[in-house]
């Protein structure tokens, strides 16, 4: 909410600025290949959705992008904030923590925030404190000034409280500020997690199934919220979501994964019509796309939604 621009320009295809440049990334766990030569480009200011059936590798992709997992092959370049230059998160010391490997918290500091498929809040802290934790990772004051109650530390403390309240208002949780995060309702926890991520002033936010487990009304609010994050805050959004209605209504572009491979990429309308995607969702093989299209001549969102992969399970 630093600057509220009234009309965020729809990212144009002519000369888009790249936020994430992923090339041929392969991630294996023993025998399981959860990402197989996946390449994609994310552009500044867009809402890019990643869809695919369960186990397709969507979360693995997120974890690779945030340094939780290190892919065996391929490269990932990042320029999260406007004006950053593209840097490899796998090979640049800027992203190395204590252990000479990519550190999650440094990726966050370079402007990438995320939420988790299974909500991961700090349940024993209040909603306000959860956000403050995020905001305060951008602050400077150390333990000694905190113990002595130095003026600059007090100022930072006040700033973080104010910012946290701003974010609570942004996601509509002001009334729950002093409730423990663990005691919030499910949908509220999802929004709180988004607010905490926003507190770190990201250029890119990665949302892993933010609508899972929420009711239709909450889903509409959430779609609105994501749009506002994208437009008002100028944050690029990478979104995993099983709810096709939601995805098709807010995403600018989609990437479809299946069995760790990218099978399609494009505008929502094109994806809806893509036979390979329909096949992946309906469980038919690619050899008989005809059958799929005849069965579903005009596949609409609801049909995709009610496919075998609808509603990811939370385990």
């Amino acid at each position, binding site marked *: 909410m630093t600057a509220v621009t009234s009309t965020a320009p729809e990212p144009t295809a002519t000369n888009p600025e790249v936020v994430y440049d992923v090339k041929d990334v392969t991630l294996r766990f023993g025998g399981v290949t959860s990402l197989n030569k996946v390449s994609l480009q994310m552009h500044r200011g867009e809402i890019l959705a990643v869809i695919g059936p369960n186990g397709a590798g969507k*979360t693995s992709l*997120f*974890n690779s992008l*945030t340094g*939780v997992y290190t892919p065996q092959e391929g490269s990932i370049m990042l320029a999260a904030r406007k004006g950053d230059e593209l840097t490899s998160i796998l090979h640049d010391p800027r992203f190395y*923590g*204590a*252990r000479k490997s990519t*550190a*999650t*918290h440094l990726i*966050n*500091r370079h402007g990438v*925030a*995320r939420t*988790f*498929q*299974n909500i*991961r*809040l*700090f*349940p*024993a*802290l209040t909603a306000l404190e959860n956000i*403050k*934790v*995020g905001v*305060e*990772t*951008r*602050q400077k*004051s*150390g*333990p000694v000034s*905190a*113990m002595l*109650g130095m003026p600059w530390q007090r100022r*930072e*403390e*006040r700033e*973080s*409280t*104010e910012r946290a*309240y701003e974010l609570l208002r942004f996601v509509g949780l*002001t*009334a729950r*500020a*002093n409730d*423990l995060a*663990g*005691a*919030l*309702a*499910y949908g509220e*926890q999802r929004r709180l997690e988004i607010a*905490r991520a926003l*507190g*770190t002033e990201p250029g890119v936010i990665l949302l*892993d199934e933010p609508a899972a*487990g929420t009711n239709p009304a909450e889903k509409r609010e959430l779609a609105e919220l994501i749009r506002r994050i994208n437009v008002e805050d100028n944050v690029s959004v990478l979104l995993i979501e099983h709810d096709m209605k939601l995805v098709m209504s807010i995403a600018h572009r989609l990437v479809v994964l299946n069995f760790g491979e990218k099978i399609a990429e494009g505008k929502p309308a094109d994806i809806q019509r893509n036979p390979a995607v329909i096949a992946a969702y309906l469980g038919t093989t690619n050899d008989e796309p005809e059958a799929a299209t005849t069965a579903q001549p005009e596949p609409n969102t609801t049909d995709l939604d009610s496919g075998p992969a609808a509603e990811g399970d939370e385990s």
Partner: protein
Amino acid sequence: MRNSGLFNDHVKRLLGCLAGGVVLALMVGNQEGVQRDFGYAFRAAIFSPRLVVFLGFGLALFVAITYWSRISPYFVRPGARPLAAGAAAVVASYGLLHWTDSNQVTGGKLGALSSAVSGTDGISSFTRTFFGSVVPGTPWLLLVVVVALGVVSLVLRLPVLAWLAAGLGLLVGVWGYIAQSAVSDYLKTADHSTGAQVAILGYAAIASGCFVIARSQTDQADTVGFIERVFGWRPGFPLAVLGTAVGLVALLTATWFSPADRNPHLSGMTNLFSGEGLSAISSAYLSWLVWVIFVVALALAFAATYLSRQAFSWASIVIGLGAVVLTLTTMHEFSSIGGKSGFDGANGPWQNIGAGPWMLCGAFTMFAGAGWIALRQGRRVDPAAPTVVAKAGSNLNQVLIIVVLAGALFYPPTATQFWQTVIVAEIGIYVLLAIGLNVVVGWAGLLDLGFIAFYAIGSYTTAYLTGTLPIKPPDWLHLTPLAAIPFAIVICLLAGLALGAPTLRLRGDYLAIVTLGFGEIIRIVAVNADKVTNGPKGAFGIPQPVIHLGPIHIQWGQSALQFWYLLLVLIGVTVLLFNRLEHSRLGRAWAAIREDEVAAQATGINTTRVKLLAFAIGASTSGVAGVFFASQIGYINPDNFLLNNSILVVAYVVFGGMGSLPGAIAGAATLTWLPEFLKDQVPAEDRQMWIGAVILLMMIFRPAGLIPAKRRAAELSGFDGVKSAETVAVPAGEGM
């Protein structure tokens, strides 16, 4: 079939309970056999009425378990729990605690005192009747009557009976208290026994329970709500009431000087010191001024808390603190006179003072505290918050803080020499250690089983810097113990980093084992590095702290009390600093990594740095404790720093409530106090058993600890209204 299964269950349970009764009967009383009869203790337990009593216990327990579903509705009624707690307190005081310290009464418990008093003609019959000169076992009978009345009124909902029980309970409590003080006046001993005090408190609890029974007809007691209402009604008000009670006892019934010999109350002081050269102000103080000040301070405290006017609050604080100072100067003056004339073997000021003036200081502190609480009331709203933030329970906390502070300042001087040593060398030091460990274990969630190593490092650093180790420091680094504190902090900080850096990747059990190893390494190095640490013999003659600052010269070492006040300053500063730390950016970051390390990292927290800071800050606290320990006791050796001590500190933190600063203090204080306290009350062999029982009960009924951390209580008790498994944090590394 089902019936017979149930019957079997009941038989088993009954047998279990009865067997438990037999075991208890064997445990109570003499444990050893005699030379000619090794079955002596066994027979004494089996062939005596004792067995019947304990079998009765077993039976009662069986009934309670079996019919619990029918009993429990009564137990949750308003007033039931204070009644039960009060009864338990009185039973403990009658059966367990000392009623006199006089060596004329063997054991000093109620039973022994009763039989001694009943046959002594020099004591008034009012007193003797309480101790059973007319009807043997009068105290117990009275207790049974009062409790029975209370229970009947609870079950049958008879307010009249409840009023009766409340009144009777108060009378009995007061009677016992007066009787006991009459006896101790007669026996002319400096009495530190706690029996009568605990009994009167127990009866007060019974009476308040009965009062609630008489007033409330609801089915479900709302204890928390009740406490919040009482303490939130007029913040600070309860403190003013407590101060009044303590002050009145101090002014009317407490000894002011020469306990054990002259025993004068305040009223007798003027007489005792007339013509002894007391200054005008002090003699005015002792004869009438103290009453004026007391009434003024009391009135201001009530006005401040009742009306919440800032002016009254400030006045109350100023008058209260001024009164403390005036009382202390008067005490200094009359005790100097006593010391000069060598009265009761005293040889200087501050000796031979009774409990009265100290209690009065406590009362004045409470009045000042009441004003302080009333003052804070007006400005508690978070300026950044758009809504008013209600802080439930904080009123109670503030009252507790003041009471603890008043106790810490003014109780130790009235304690016996033995207890003063315990307060310094056990309670105080372990409180400081627990505060330090709480940072690591409670806040950051890193289990450290080698914490005592830092204590050792602090102690040995002091020994080195004061030149008492085989290796000597360079001349310019030869320091007094107090000057060694910053060095010890820095060295322990570095040691904390040295331990932390290589072990940070470990979690939970693995970390615990490595820290345990670290603790042992430090100890073994201390044992074996003869040339550096003087091996198992340790360091001798570590000097005691001194301060030479311009006109101020303070030399520690004359009494444990001096050390206590030094320690109190150290603890107080640490608590203040750490309290701020807990609610700062770093404190929240610790909570975050403890709750969910993966999420914390993804939110941008440098977990390595944050964990290292926890280790370092915890370690440096421990180092300060080490400096204090070394310079207080004067000699150290590796045996002071055993694994056992590390584990004890962890136990204190857990017992008090992990992650709660007041909890760590309370836990350490309770568990270090308990064994010393039990020394007098139970046979030495049984001590561990009693401690074990206390810890066991605690973990069953309050698993989150004595004073649970706000940030952790919810973790253990679950979150209201949210039952879905999805909200449970997934352990790191799973299901991202």
